[in-house]
């Protein structure tokens, strides 16, 4: 009579003791935001009052449940402020972790699965694009100035129009290519979206974070040594391209061999075009620059000579 009741009571006590001893333990709950906050890695930045545990052994289980919830994150309609606020639900440590993940791609770790964990954000892609625009324009201007240093006829010009061009090119790349890629992948998969498909936001997020490596690369391009520039381009393209390839290969490999290879090759080629195009346009060496002051002076000389006939 007393013993079964005692046993039951003790079980509850144990569970209660466990929870009270470790209030930060990850309890699996059905809202996506909780999932993301309890799986964030331990970091030293920001407030730091809450200890966030990295429950790596529970990763698979939580990833599966969060994958199912992937399409139900947005709160409210797209005309409300809260809808867009759900895309900025990141902390400093999370953004830094994602940036680190984009710079050091490891073969086993899919960027979306490992770093985004169904909490894609728009903060990273947007501000990385803005920083890249200004770093490319400023570094290009500086490299032009440095390559003309010894030339006494050269007059420094800020070339501010390059900011506009850089902004158009980089924002078009970072937003149109993910749209195209996501549309193509969704079409290829048909209606089986849940099986390994990525949402549009996750695609944009991967592309945005993969552009981060170009920021220090563009700053290093100021050094006017040509082989160093090409080496830097190669390194940056390999790192950034492998982040993209590692992310999209698991999705594409279920398709026919030809389509899979073609998709991955297109991703790599577009990325290469962006890098090489930026380098060729913004970091022109001295002999390629338009020398307008010299050419306008020459016809004037010619007319002066031919007049006194």
């Amino acid at each position, binding site marked *: 009579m007393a013993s079964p009741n005692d046993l039951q009571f003790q079980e509850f006590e144990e569970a209660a003791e466990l929870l009270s001893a470790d209030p930060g333990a990850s309890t699996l709950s059905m809202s996506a935001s909780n999932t993301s906050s309890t799986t964030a890695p331990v970091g030293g930045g920001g407030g730091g009052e809450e200890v966030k545990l990295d429950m790596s052994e529970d990763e698979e289980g939580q990833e599966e449940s969060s994958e199912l919830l992937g399409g139900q994150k947005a709160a409210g309609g797209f005309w409300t402020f809260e809808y867009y606020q759900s895309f*900025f639900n990141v902390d400093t440590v999370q*953004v830094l972790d994602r940036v680190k993940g984009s710079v050091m791609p490891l073969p086993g770790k899919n960027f979306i699965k490992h770093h985004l964990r169904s909490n894609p954000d728009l903060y990273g892609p947007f501000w990385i694009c803005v*920083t890249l625009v200004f770093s490319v324009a400023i570094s290009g201007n500086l490299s032009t100035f440095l390559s003309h240093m010894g030339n006494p006829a050269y*007059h420094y*010009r*800020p070339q501010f129009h390059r900011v506009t061009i850089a902004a158009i090119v980089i924002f078009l790349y970072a937003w149109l290519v993910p749209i195209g890629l996501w549309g193509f992948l969704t079409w290829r998969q048909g209606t089986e979206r849940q099986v390994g498909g990525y949402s549009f936001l996750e695609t944009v997020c991967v592309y945005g974070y993969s552009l981060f490596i170009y920021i220090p690369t563009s700053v290093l391009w100021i050094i006017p040594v040509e082989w160093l520039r090409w080496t830097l381009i190669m390194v940056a393209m390999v790192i950034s391209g492998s982040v993209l390839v590692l992310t999209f290969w698991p999705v594409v490999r279920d398709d026919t061999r030809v389509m899979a290879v073609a998709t991955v090759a297109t991703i790599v080629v577009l990325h290469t075009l962006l890098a090489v195009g930026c380098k060729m346009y913004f970091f022109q060496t001295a002999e390629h620059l338009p020398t307008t002051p010299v050419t306008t002076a020459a016809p004037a000389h010619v007319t002066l000579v031919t007049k006194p006939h």
Partner: protein
Amino acid sequence: MAASEEASRPFAGLSEVSISEDIPVEGDISVPMSSSRRDDEFSTLDEPVKETILRDLRAVGNKFIHVLYPKRSSALLRDWDLWGPLLLCVTLALLLQGGAADSDDQGGPQFAEVFVIIWFGSIVITLNSKLLGGTISFFQSLCVLGYCIMPLTAAMVVCRIVLVGGSGTVSFAVRLMVVTASFGWSTFASTAFLADSQPPNRKALVVYPVFLFYFVIGWMILTFSPSQ
């Protein structure tokens, strides 16, 4: 019964009160006239125009002083206004004109480009801070970001004066130091005002765009080169 007796007891004595007829009861029932005086204080229709303008100018000047000596105060946030930012933005955009070969596209930023960068940049930074969960209001943030451009505008004035003397290496070094100091001052001042309204684990995410914003303005000022 007892309750009604108790209720009537406070008024029980009233029936005995009588006013003798030879004491006149007189008085005045009228609304006190001081309300019209209160109206005058709130209504500013009758004050001279000079006073109206001076009041706004004093408010703007007060905020400039708060930017000069930035400490965590809420003066800038409580009474926000956008006159100061507009004044500073137009001054800075005008001073950035007259650069090398302004008409062709190899030169410095046009007036419209400076305007768009400052205002659109401020709006984007404000939206960013609100989306990240900041408690500051939209116009308060615009006000703070605009007022903190003041050190950079002062640096622009100094740079133009230095450039009158020549544009060699010494002048470049002086301009670099001035612009760097004012850029640091601007960023420090704006974070002093904005820092408290952000959630603590996202402070760096909000401060970085402000840093980038003032860095770009500082670069525009530093690379200003006069036409020959």
